């Protein structure tokens, strides 16, 4: 565990205060930090995922972003587009996955070659994948997932269902593939983006609990 992580969390906890986060704590809980040797590297990649999340926020979308890596290189990125598409399944992960599959299909890769590719891919996403995305990642056979804050309403990597573990039904080879999954990377940053989003209000919710306020442009 690097000292930077610890110091960072403590500073942020004081900065935000528990009460300020109470709005979010029910929905996106801040995970304990992962013990990572390569903390710096995971922060670098999560930084790119957070950048995607900020793009989502600017577009008045729920701020979740992700990047997919192959051998240390970012080969796809995605952000939430559920409001724009009016399709609530267009999560950041789905956007990035579709980008990859589209490209690989265009390159003439066969399904088995695409599966081979996914088995070497690592995903960084700012919030724990939901049950839908966690299942999808298992179907694709992704190698590894790193996420920021946990999601105790929809989380599919342990919070609600442990879909990253894969299924135990292995007879006839039908069993689901599991993948390595670690949470808590730069969770505070991910949560603070959600906080911004819920403060500004969701213009697409059917009956907003809070009025939509005009965004202050940075």
């Amino acid at each position: 565990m690097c000292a930077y992580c610890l110091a960072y969390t403590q500073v942020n906890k004081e900065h935000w205060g528990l009460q300020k986060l109470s709005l979010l704590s029910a929905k996106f809980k801040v995970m304990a930090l992962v013990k990572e040797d390569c903390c710096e590297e995971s922060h670098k990649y999560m930084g790119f995922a957070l950048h995607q999340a900020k793009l989502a926020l600017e577009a008045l979308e729920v701020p979740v972003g992700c990047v997919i890596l192959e051998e240390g290189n970012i080969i796809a990125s995605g952000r939430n587009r559920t409001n724009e598409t009016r399709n609530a399944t267009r999560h950041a992960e789905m956007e990035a996955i579709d980008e990859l599959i589209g490209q690989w299909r265009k390159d003439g890769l066969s399904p088995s070659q695409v599966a081979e590719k996914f088995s070497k891919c690592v995903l960084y996403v700012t919030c724990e994948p939901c049950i839908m995305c966690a299942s999808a990642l298992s179907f694709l056979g992704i190698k590894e997932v790193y996420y920021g804050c946990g999601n105790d309403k929809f989380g599919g990597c342990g919070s609600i269902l442990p879909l990253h573990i894969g299924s135990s039904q292995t007879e006839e080879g039908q069993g689901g593939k599991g993948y390595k999954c670690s949470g808590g990377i730069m969770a505070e940053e991910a949560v603070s983006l959600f906080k911004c989003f819920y403060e500004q209000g969701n213009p697409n919710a059917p009956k907003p609990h809070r009025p939509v306020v005009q965004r202050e442009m940075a």
Partner: protein
Amino acid sequence: MDSGAWEIIHIPNKPAFSPEHQPTLKVYASVIKPKFANTIVRQLCKIAPLEDLRHVKRVRRKILPDNGEPQLTVILCLAPEHNDHSKEMPPDVQKLVGPYELSPFITEVCKYAAVSKEEWEEQCKIWPTSFHPPTYNIDGIGGFSEEDTHSICKFMSVAINLAVSSHKPLVNAAVIVDPSVKRIIATETDQVYPSFPCDMTTSETIPFNGTGESNHCQSIDRVINGSSEIYLNGVLEKLNGSSSAVACLNPWQWSLQPHDADKCSQWHPLRHASIVAIESSAARDRHLFPNSSEGFSLDHSQPSDADSPAKKQKTSSNSPDVQNDSSREAALRDASIEKPYLCTGYDIFLLWEPCTMCAMALVHQRIKRIFYAFPNPTAGGLGSVHRLQGEKSLNHHYAVFRVLLPGHAHNALEEIKGLKHVTAES
């Protein structure tokens, strides 16, 4: 059971137990003196509330057979599930034992609220509970009218027809319906394998024009006009064929498909029928109501005015610059077409129980009711492997029904036993 009839069964949000074998929890209880009853119950509600056992009555009143006197027994608090003597009652509860002359013992109560009168009667043999017949505002849980049953069967026929007729290997099919006007919103099949012809109109972009709409209507009319039984007889035989290409049944098997680069390149491991149908209905929404949110999201530098979102939507859907499209104009004229919020209020008909990915996608898209014909023992998300309709933390819950096809006893697919039948076969 008449194998020639359709039947609709509710798949509840908890596993089905026979009334005699319902799960129980251990609790500490004690006989109390009637004069202490009010005080004790008031204190217990404060120090040991039974949060998840609201259906359980705190006090049991029994007439003793020998002297005809009433005896009151009260639940003190939850007891450890295993015989672990290190865990005693909480100190606050312990304090009541002396003053009120309690003699705590461990007994059992039913863990879940009863969903039927039969369950309730069995529960009360263990410890009294309260029973509230379902008052959900989701139609169908309490039973379907003849008319509803009829239209459910028809829409399921559309899904079956779609699954067997348009594809060589059997696939799953999804039909999204607005039940308030019995209008089909989207019809799609799995697009995991490139087994369908490339020029099929239902791939990726669907033309939402007047003809597309009327085609859908024709397909319903055809089913409704023909005798559904005759219509299905030939189809059901095909359902006995291999189901290995059904995406939700074998979601990890997509990479094993043979690849022909010259053929259609539209395969996609995650394009299960439900996912494609959701995309299709979202595309329809964007097409019919083009201005309601996109301008908002895309052009964020434009100051948002003080209008409430509801007012804004109303204004934009009446805007006169929407032209050149008959169905869009029709939508604007037709008061029955309201701007949907995702798939709120819509039903989806599927041949197979959706996998967990699709089941969660349907939560996200706010589907109201799911109807499927066959269970999915490998990956099903609605009772077979997981049960999303019973996951309390989710922000939306749909009602789930299985539609048993006529003659279902003859096909080799697995049968669910012990489920509550909500449609009277009258």
